[in-house]
């Protein structure tokens, strides 16, 4: 049954349905509503979990290191400055192979201080060893949460996951959502049974230091696990579809992409706007389509090569910038094609930084620029919605 709820409530409800043992919480806008809803569920006896309000995001994730080492299923959520404060622990959780699931309510990073949405926070953390799935709407955020646990807890993967949802745009929106059924989720997501935990009856050491003779191998095994996650993400999305009857794609998803001459590539909630723009342009006879990157880490190189091999031109739209060299997704996409036969022109746009709206008009502008780029690239990368009139 569809219910009109706030995005944060829907995600909190989805996390509750996954029966976490330990939830840690620290308030930061626009993530706060998620942990507020979870704490209310604990207060009402709806969620049976250890719920801990801690002194910082740094401690929020650190607490989960201890709980995960005990075999607990762990959940937390954060954003922006909070994710940045966790940075050191992010590497630790992935290096210790702890299958923590964390919702990232994507938000801009300061300075200047800005509480609104972009994806600089998680894209900037692409190399920390976590899997990253980006969702386009609240329903996908809900559905991806149990999928994330199933992927993370796979014994061949054992890697933490960020479920990235655009802050405010998805966390604070009220829209009709099919909430999950806890019993049904329990059938889809089996209990987590780690190989070893901290146990006085079998006293292992966890977190020994590795010297140059073994460090590379630990990193390689993490790399290998992410490669294995490519197939797992697809399989889990299919299995979810079979059980719940919904899918938003596995590694990627497409919209009107089959015969598209111009293909837009992006992640997150801007997809809704892009689909509207595509519908408009298609009605006008413009052959434009969309490839959505759902899994940014692992980066689905083969899936993207396959989906984009017939495109005439590719335009990447993303809410992040790698200050000093274009932006994350466009760089990764170009790298994915370099050793393939694909020689399609690729242009990149950064847009929607710090909460600036990306409109249908903006998407049309990108499509026009992409169309022109087929005859020769004028600008490889640009700030789409730059207000030149207020620049010095």
């Amino acid at each position, binding site marked *: 049954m569809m219910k009109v709820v706030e995005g944060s409530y829907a995600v909190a409800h989805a996390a509750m349905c996954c029966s976490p*043992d*330990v939830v*840690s919480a620290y308030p930061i806008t626009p993530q706060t509503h998620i942990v507020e809803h979870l704490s209310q569920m604990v207060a009402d006896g709806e969620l049976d*979990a*250890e719920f*801990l309000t*801690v*002194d*910082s995001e*740094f*401690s929020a994730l*650190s*607490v*989960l*290191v*201890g*709980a*995960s*080492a*005990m*075999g*607990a299923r762990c959940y937390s959520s954060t954003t922006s400055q909070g994710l940045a404060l966790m940075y*050191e*622990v992010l590497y*630790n959780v992935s290096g*210790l192979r702890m299958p923590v699931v964390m919702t990232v309510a994507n938000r801009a990073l300061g300075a200047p201080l800005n509480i609104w949405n972009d994806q600089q926070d998680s894209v900037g953390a692409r190399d920390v060893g976590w899997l990253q799935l980006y969702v386009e709407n609240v329903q996908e955020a809900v559905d991806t949460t149990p999928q994330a646990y199933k992927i993370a807890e796979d014994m061949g993967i054992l890697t933490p996951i960020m479920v990235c949802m655009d802050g405010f745009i998805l966390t604070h929106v009220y829209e009709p959502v099919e909430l999950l059924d806890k019993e049904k989720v329990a059938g889809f997501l089996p209990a987590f049974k780690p190989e070893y935990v*901290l*146990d*006085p009856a*079998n*006293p*292992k*050491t*966890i*977190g*020994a*230091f*590795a*010297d140059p003779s*073994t460090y590379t191998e630990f990193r390689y095994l993490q790399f290998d696990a992410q490669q294995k996650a490519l197939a797992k993400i697809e399989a889990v999305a299919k299995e979810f579809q079979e059980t719940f009857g919904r899918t938003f794609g596995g590694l990627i998803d497409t919209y009107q992409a089959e015969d598209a001459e111009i293909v837009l590539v992006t992640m997150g909630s801007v997809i809704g706007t892009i689909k509207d723009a595509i519908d408009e342009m298609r009605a006008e006879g413009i052959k434009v389509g969309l490839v959505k990157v759902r899994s940014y880490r692992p980066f689905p190189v083969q899936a993207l090569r396959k989906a984009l091999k017939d495109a005439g031109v590719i335009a990447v739209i993303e809410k992040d910038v790698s200050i000093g060299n274009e932006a994350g997704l466009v760089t990764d996409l170009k790298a994915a094609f370099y050793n393939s036969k694909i020689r399609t022109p690729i242009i990149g746009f950064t847009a929607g930084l710090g909460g600036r709206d990306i409109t249908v008009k903006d998407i049309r502008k990108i499509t026009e620029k992409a169309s022109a780029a087929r005859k020769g690239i004028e600008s490889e990368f640009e700030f789409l919605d730059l207000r030149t009139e207020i620049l010095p």
Partner: protein
Amino acid sequence: MQNLLAPGHRACAGCSMPTVVRLVLDAAGPNTIVVSPTSCLEVTTTPFPESAWCVPWLHSLFENAAAVASGVEIALKRFHKDANVLVIGGDGSTFDIGMGSNSGMFERGHKVTYVCYDNEAYMNTGVQRSGSTPFCAHTTTTPSGEISLGNPRPKKDMPAIALAHRVPYVATASVAYPVDLRRKVKKAIETQGPSYIQVNAPCITGWTFDAGKTVEIARLAVETGLWPLFEYVNGQLTEVKKVRRPKPVEDYLKSQGRYRHLFKKPGGTEVLKQIQAMADANISKYCLVD
């Protein structure tokens, strides 16, 4: 004595830290889970693929041991299991970088026993000043020099900070008083809620003395009144180790290279008086002399 810390670890010959840990584990027993921050202890006891620990042990980062231990403790609760949860870490993580995490663990009231082996500087990185470094000690970042007499600040009062959090069991201990240390660890782990024990742990390389003198120097710290052995239960001072005839602080300071400059440089005599005043203040505050 139970040996829950195996030999073969890489601590310096004469290091007090393994003895502190052996005594702590002997008192806590095998039904114990230890979390350690990054430290000399961590690097000397767990070079992959080896570990000296005979109890389950977890290392995460330098500044989060108390938060990690909080997670271990709530998971024990969640799974209806019972074990002692200990943090064993140095003063750098305890006094400085892990302070926020410690404050959170204390304030939330986790049943965790935090043991700080206090060697009064960042020894693992090569003897840099920490918030625990005593007044006028020479370290590599507070060196004595033409115009400096070493660390310009007195040692941070960590037990008072723990007490301000209403930590129900707070004590100081010393490697030179093993019976006292073991008794305090036992009391700490029986406490409902957090407990904090700060153990004086001389470092041969950082303090500069001959390896065999480790215990003697720790004993001198107590006998001069510079390291009072006390115990607070529920905020009340319940016990102190009496010092029959306090020795002059010079006896303690002279035994270590880190104070050598105080006996050579102009101004040193004045500092010695100030340090004696600190010892006298302890003697009076804790009624160390009958």
